[in-house]
């Protein structure tokens, strides 16, 4: 994950390749009741967000998100077509967009379903402007933390794989060239320097050819 300065605006490049602002700007709203949608839209607008939508049902929400990827989504649960939980899952899986559920339901099974779908916050209607703001900020931070942790995990995994590669190549040299382990390591590094190649490529070559 990298933080860049885009003409005075901080942007974050996630390891997934997606570029997001440091604070969310475009928020998708999906709500099948006009007055509620109008109210949420007004609150979000007052908070300075650009509202995408509001989408009248689950299908419209997915369509809108794919047309212009929002930073975050605020979704009602009960909507025609795919419900809010299904939409949240779809948006996170396909676009990496985090979601907040805004619902009048507060029973255990509904909240559990939302948690399993991986939503980042759950708001009970009617939510005040402060509640909405807090939920969005915390959800966004948690989202970035998760992306960061995921990036670190992927990096560690990659390094571990590389390490296994290097170890395999090193032991081939120890076995075939009767070198000591440090000498084999030095030989691989020297070959990489001499050929201006990556150490990993040199190791791969050794493993594939079985020779040095």
């Amino acid at each position, binding site marked *: 994950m990298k933080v860049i300065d885009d003409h005075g605006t901080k942007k974050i490049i996630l390891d997934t390749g997606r570029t997001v602002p440091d604070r969310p700007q475009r928020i998708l709203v999906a709500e099948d*009741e006009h*007055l509620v*949608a109008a*109210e949420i839209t007004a609150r979000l607008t007052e908070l300075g967000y650009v509202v995408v939508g509001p989408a009248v049902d689950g299908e419209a929400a997915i369509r809108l998100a794919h047309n212009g990827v929002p930073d975050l989504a605020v979704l009602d649960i009960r909507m025609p077509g795919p419900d809010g939980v299904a939409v949240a899952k779809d948006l996170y899986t396909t676009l990496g967009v985090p979601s907040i559920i805004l619902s009048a339901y507060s029973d255990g099974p509904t909240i559990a379903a939302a948690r399993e779908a991986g939503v980042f916050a759950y708001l009970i209607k009617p939510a005040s402007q402060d509640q909405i703001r807090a939920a969005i900020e915390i959800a966004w931070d948690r989202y970035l933390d998760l992306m960061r942790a995921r990036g670190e995990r992927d990096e560690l995994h990659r390094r571990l794989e590389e390490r296994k590669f290097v170890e395999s190549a090193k032991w081939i040299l120890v076995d075939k060239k009767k070198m000591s382990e440090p000498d084999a390591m030095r030989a691989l590094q020297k070959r990489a320097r001499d050929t201006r190649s990556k150490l990993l490529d040199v190791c791969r070559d050794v493993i594939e050819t079985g020779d040095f």
Partner: protein
Amino acid sequence: MGRGARMAAALGSSSNTSTGARPTAGSWFMCLYVGPAVLTLASLILGLAMVGVLPWLLGSEDPGSRRAAGFAVLALGPVLSMLWVWTQRRRWSRIFDRLFQERFAAHADLLPAMLWTVRPDSMCDFLNSAWLEYCGRDMNSQLGHGWLDIVHPDDRLASRGTFLGAFELRRPFRLYYRLRRSDGVYRRFVASATPTYGSDGSFSGYLGVSIDIEEQASAVDMFRASEERYRGIVEDQTELICRWTPDGVITFVNEAYCRAFGRDSAQLIGREFAPLIPEEDRQIMIDVAARLGPKEPLIVSEHRVIVADGSVRWHRWTDRALFDGQGNVVEYQGVGVDITESKLAELSVKQANERLASLLKREADLRRELNHRVRNNLASLLGLVELYSKSSATVPELAEAIRGKVAAMREVHELISATSGGADLASLVSRLAGSFAKMGQGPSRVTWEGPTVLLPPEVATATAMIVQELLMNSLKHGALADASGQVALEWAPPAEGPGLSLVWRERIPSRMAFADLVPDPSRVGMSDTPPQHGGAGLSLVRGLASFELRGDASFSFEPAGLVCRIRIGVPLDLPQAPSKPTGQTRA
């Protein structure tokens, strides 16, 4: 024929060869073979001498008479030999008879069983020492029919009858009787006798043996008594008891079982029990039979049964496997009780619990839905406030707008409560128009026409808010604000697709006259230009039509007044032959 010969006939020829008796084999051979041979030879010599040699030696003065005498001597030899043999055979027969008697008696006395022989005239002529020792009598008292004296008086007649009857038929017979021991105790015996025949095939009587079966009989008596006691116990049980073979054939049922199934034991024993169990429960018994074994010798199961009148009852069975010496299941025994009443009670409780659980779930669902509705309505109210706070110039104006929408929601709620399923559109319009009349907004008219339509709650609420908004707008700025103005609301199924089409048409006669003079109303800014003060209302109508009604709304500001077309996209149940309820109110 003597008893020895009968014994020989009964025991086989081997008895003849075992005569290591006092007359030696040599004397027997001499008597039977050498004697006749000597006699025959002597007569031959003498006869030949008399026929030929003697006359030749002595001269033939009267050869004829001497020859005749010689032939006579020759013939006399065989006759004498035969006579000799016959006499010797009788003699030896008596000797053998005596020997056999002695040997038989000696052997018979060695036997633990009581042995006896009977002559062809049915008179007993021998009893071994086992008999005599048992009864403590001497031989003479028992011979003939004397043996009947120790037979139990109750068995005597039957024994005698069987005995004599067998003699007539000369067949083997078996006799069960009680014999009095020397101490006066009667014990049970079984006598087996077989007819004996001489070497010439003549009937020579019976050889019989009497065996003490008191111990076995007592064991059988005990077993029978035990079985009777078991049966008594089993029959006294209120539990149903039955036994059946591994192939499902009933081998035993008690009275309670018969009563429970309404059948007698003859109708049950020897038949398969499968037909007594409903087909859907038979697998239970198959599983029980498969599981019963040394590792699981006892299984309790519950299933239904079919009794004689065809009714179905519930039984609980405790089944047990019975094994043979090798551990193989030879039979199953089941003890059952009728649990129909408790099962029915259990089912009733279960159903009641299910009903209760269903009611509790319904109550929870209702509470959850109510909670949702209240919160959603609060959110909607906030939305209303948000919507009208920007367009209302004063607080009373804001209050009036919100009050009108809340009133519309109340009307819908009352209608839905009355019909418990939806709101009739005509009734809804009537209530909304009537509420304006009560508010005394001035003289004007509202009419409506369309088929009977029952709107679902969400659709009814949105429709009510739209109609209320249009009425309020008309009262303030449209046809109803004019003394001559009229409003007509018509609805009908759409030309295409589901739902309903509504047309709100305002008509102001004075504007119509003006419009006739000005063919192009747009030139005076009245056609496509929405009123400046209607922004929030129009937004509300469009939003509700788009979101809740899944349709759209369009406005046309025609010279005669506003025309609003609303399409409800939500599928509705419309009558096939729509009636046309109409109405009008003076608002």
